[in-house]
């Protein structure tokens, strides 16, 4: 991962110096271990603040919608797919964005790592595939592959699908015969167990809306949950309102979600809200053979109609 950071900084410095872009959106080192902070670099000499490692789990496409002027973005595989979705959904023009593609080797699940320790983590370092994490009590070396984020585990689009330049040569994509084992697991449960699974999932949700606000797909001026006239969802912590919010938020991502995991990365309680969207991703793949954000020219399935769309559910 660290070999390409030098390349990224050179590219950004070059872009800024030539004035080709107004600003570069990337990640800067965080003030606490295992954290990185999205940053906008406007001046050449600031490019050294840019970093890229396995803790850059947020989706920078979220900062690209409604941008005026030309900007550059450092984009992982999933980020680039969300930029494609932005373009397809007229949030940004293709020529408005210079994409620095970074073939990704997966981001780490910070909650899973933190669970190994009783006290706070004070050190986090990584070098090609092994992580060394330490707190005041102990130090552990871990295989990154065992601590990948849920979405990176099943990711088949590590290489950016749309880019102006690549920070390093593309890696080899993983081939999976079953892309959705986690969804099958839930589908195997009986009706009441399914409901119980989702009730336990969102039990500690504090409705801070970090999952919605971290998602590049959520750019509505007034979200359905903020609407008061009519009011679709209660504002309180009643579990029906909480589940209604999560159900409807997920439903708005049907056929658009690239499973980048920014929602889970942003959640302060570490709730895997992807359990909602993953089912929709599986269905859109099964019914329409569609994966979001792969091709700027193709319209999403729920945006088009053709006669052989499956409609057996209509009686």
């Amino acid at each position, binding site marked *: 991962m660290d070999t390409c950071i030098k390349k990224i900084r050179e590219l950004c410095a070059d872009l800024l110096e030539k004035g080709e872009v107004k600003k570069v959106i990337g990640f800067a080192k965080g003030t606490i271990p295992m954290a990185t902070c999205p940053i906008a670099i406007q001046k050449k000499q600031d490019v050294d603040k840019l970093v890229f490692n396995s803790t850059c789990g947020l989706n920078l496409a979220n900062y690209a919608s409604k941008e005026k002027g030309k900007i550059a973005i450092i984009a992982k595989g999933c980020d680039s797919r969300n930029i494609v979705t932005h373009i397809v959904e007229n949030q940004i023009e293709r020529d408005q964005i210079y994409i620095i593609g970074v073939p990704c080797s997966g981001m780490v699940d910070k909650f899973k790592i933190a669970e190994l320790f009783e006290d706070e983590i004070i050190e986090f370092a990584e070098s090609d595939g092994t992580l060394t994490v330490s707190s005041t009590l102990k130090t552990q070396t871990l295989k990154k592959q065992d601590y990948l984020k849920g979405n990176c585990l099943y990711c088949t689009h590590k290489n950016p699908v749309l880019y102006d330049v690549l920070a390093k040569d593309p890696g080899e994509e993983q081939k999976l015969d079953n892309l959705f084992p986690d969804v099958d697991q839930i589908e195997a449960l009986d009706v009441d167990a399914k*409901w119980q699974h*989702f009730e336990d999932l969102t039990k500690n949700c504090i409705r801070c809306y970090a999952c919605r606000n971290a998602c590049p797909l959520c750019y509505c001026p007034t979200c359905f949950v903020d609407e008061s006239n009519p009011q679709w969802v209660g504002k309180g912590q009643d579990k*029906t309102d909480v589940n*209604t919010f999560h*159900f409807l938020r997920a439903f708005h991502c049907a056929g658009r979600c690239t499973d980048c995991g920014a929602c889970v990365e942003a959640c302060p309680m570490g709730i895997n809200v992807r359990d*909602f969207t993953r089912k*929709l991703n599986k269905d859109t793949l099964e019914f329409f053979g569609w994966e979001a954000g792969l091709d700027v020219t193709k319209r999403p399935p729920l945006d088009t109609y053709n006669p052989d769309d499956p409609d057996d559910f*209509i009686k």
Partner: protein
Amino acid sequence: MGNLLEHMGIERDRVHFSWISSAEATKFVDVVKEISDRVRALGPNKKFVKDYN
């Protein structure tokens, strides 16, 4: 929509989709009767229902 509801634990028989034109009055009656029976068979729904204690 139906799949996600089912995924969350709402029995498939509780949610029905039908395509009835305003001219097809009889079909409307039949569909309503059939769905009511199917839903009544499942008993009162406890999920997605706010409890106002």
